[in-house]
């Protein structure tokens, strides 16, 4: 296990150090809250960020596993294509936007614009989520254990939003449908895998009202 103290380092130094030490090791990064773009674009490895992280954590991640022990800054897991990001605390504005794949688990709450233009990732928020979550989602799923703000799943195209609590308002092109047994078992296995205590039977499912939303 290797530890990198990022206090005196810049983005290039930290990511270079991570790349050098990641082969076969778990890398621990400390004091990285001022660095934006830690572990960007990495394909393999296992990284633990101790404390808070800066913005753009794990952007373009393509297979790497990242865990943050406290809160993540803005735009965590932005444009992730594969891999996992686990945030033990809260996520900042716009977490998990533009993702093509992978899994993002936020054990705390998430702010506005989480999962915008999600194209295939699984995003789990154990707490509450802000406004405009899953805006223009094209595929994948957003699972919210708590409550959601305004305009949930605005202009949804494909994929599904599962929500355990209430929403303030639903966005355009959304349709509220009953949960199926498959949905419940899928959620149950995800909750078990990531150690989240929630009852899938009380969840609601939102899908796109029209599969081809043409705008004028």
């Amino acid at each position, binding site marked *: 296990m290797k530890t990198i103290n990022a206090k005196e380092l810049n983005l290039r130094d930290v990511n270079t150090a991570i790349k050098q030490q990641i082969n076969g090791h778990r890398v621990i990064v400390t004091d990285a809250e001022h660095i934006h773009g830690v572990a*960007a674009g990495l394909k393999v490895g296992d990284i633990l960020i101790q404390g808070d992280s800066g913005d*753009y954590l794990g952007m373009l991640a393509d297979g790497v596993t990242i865990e943050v022990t406290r809160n993540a800054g803005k735009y965590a897991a932005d444009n992730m294509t594969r891999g996992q990001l686990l945030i033990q605390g809260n996520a900042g504005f716009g977490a998990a936007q*533009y993702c093509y794949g992978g899994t993002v688990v936020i054990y705390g709450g998430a702010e506005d614009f989480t999962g915008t233009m999600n194209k295939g990732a699984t995003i789990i928020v154990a707490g509450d989520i802000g406004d*405009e979550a899953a805006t223009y989602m*094209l595929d994948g799923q957003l699972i919210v254990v708590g409550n959601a703000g305004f*305009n949930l799943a605005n202009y949804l195209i494909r994929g599904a939003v599962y929500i355990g609590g209430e929403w303030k308002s639903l966005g355009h092109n959304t349709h509220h449908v009953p949960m199926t047994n498959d949905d419940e078992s899928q959620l149950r296995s995800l909750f078990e895998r990531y150690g989240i205590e929630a009852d899938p039977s009380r969840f609601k499912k939102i899908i796109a009202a029209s599969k*081809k939303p043409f705008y004028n």
Partner: protein
Amino acid sequence: MSAIGTFCVSVNRQACLNSQMPGKCGTCAEVCPHGVYAFDSQSGQVHIQNYNTCVGCRICAEFCPTDAIRINPAESEYISRYPWTFGVIEEIHHKAQTGSYLLRGFGTQGPTPNFDMITVVPSQIASQPPRDKYREECDMELVIGEDTCEKPMRLKLPFVWPAMSFGALSKEAKMALAIGAAMTGIATNTGEGGMLPEEAYLSRGYEDDSFSFQRWQPGGYLVVQWSTGRWGVSADYVRGGDAVEVKIGQGAKPGMGGHLLGAKVGEEVARVRGIPVGSDALSPCRYYDVQTLDDMKHQVAMLRDVTDYQVPILFKLGPSRPYADVAACIEAGADAISIDGLVGGTGCSPDLVTQGVGIPTIACIPQAVQALKDYGVHRKVKLIALGGIRNGLDAFKALAMGADAVGFGSAAEVAMGCRVCYACHKGNCPYGITSHRPELRARLDPVETGQKLANFIHANAEEVKILTMLSGHNRIADLSTEDLRAMDFNTAALTGLKLAGYDRPLPFWDQWPQSSAGDGSGNGHGQVPNRPVTSEHHRG
């Protein structure tokens, strides 16, 4: 569309094959993008259904096997009926019937301020003597990112193909652009629709993905676009280019994201973009993951890190406040900045945005150059002028005004065979350039068309070389506004160029610029916004 109602279609019935033998030919009805002709399947006869929808592209005349069609401009009627032209009336009828606005492709119609009223100043006895185009050398190479990257982009000529996405263009057209770039040593651009596997090797001059045989010399470069829709973007995509271009906006529709109508989203486009077949792909107008200029700086730093500090980062703007927009790009860490003026092209856009939004290219360049000079980076951070550049003469004028390179977007489509019918968005391009229908795409041979594009670039290079050398220079970078004069008041007022005859800039240009960049005071040019966009903003 202002072109509507300004052309008369006439068919010589004695020459027309269909008139002689009904049912034998209906080519004009098949190729017309605007339904001017109709084929009656019962009688087999073709008749002119609605000649007023003609936009004067003359595709029918080109395809007619017996040369029976003539398209005559009817400008005098257009002028006498202005402002209630047929086009305006048709637009109002369309809105009244459908409740929707007009969409169209290609670019701006009608006169806008352009390079035409600028003249080139040759060398005579009072300046350094002209150089001999036929027997002397002229340095036209352009290096982007020389001081900042480990693998700078070394363009053989100061030209680029601007971003045109796979989706807007057909696969064959994208391949032809890549081959044209490889043959001339310039850069092609993926656009925002993801990267075609073919682009990666063709643009570098290789004939297949084994990268074993370089068929086209000297080999070009591939710019990958990082845009607001992030279609088909991954770490591998970003690392697959010789440069990354951050798209802020485009000249044809600044302030809006890319439009790709469902009619053009077939299986291959859907796969490359990662979206459902047949759904409209409307890119967001802004980056959801950039709220402030600081965020953009961090994103650029991240892109440099992901590409291992090897390749340049470019920005593309449809500048609205050219000085401040370019200043913001410099602050964000750009190695080159493309400014795409009002006349810039598009595969699909609301008519009123293409027509009525943006700053003319000639008015963008001087402000952009001033921003670069104020930051002390003119000729270091390269300026690429786009938007309505049609030939070597336009290119030279843009270069002399202070740009380091120019892009031929619409002109490249025309070089591929386009006749400007403004129907790129419909997906029925008779030349296979903006269509995904296999039978139309088969008309475009990528290698043959790549050669045409290369010819076009070489001809423009020669034109730029002639003008550079007759004005006494042997390096593109030595050109200056002293090599140009404005020929009318408007152009002198918009550009700050010396007015021919008066031989100095118009007096009010002495007042500009008033303040240096970055201090956020004075004339407002130096202000760089750093305001977050919130969910309240989103909901209005």
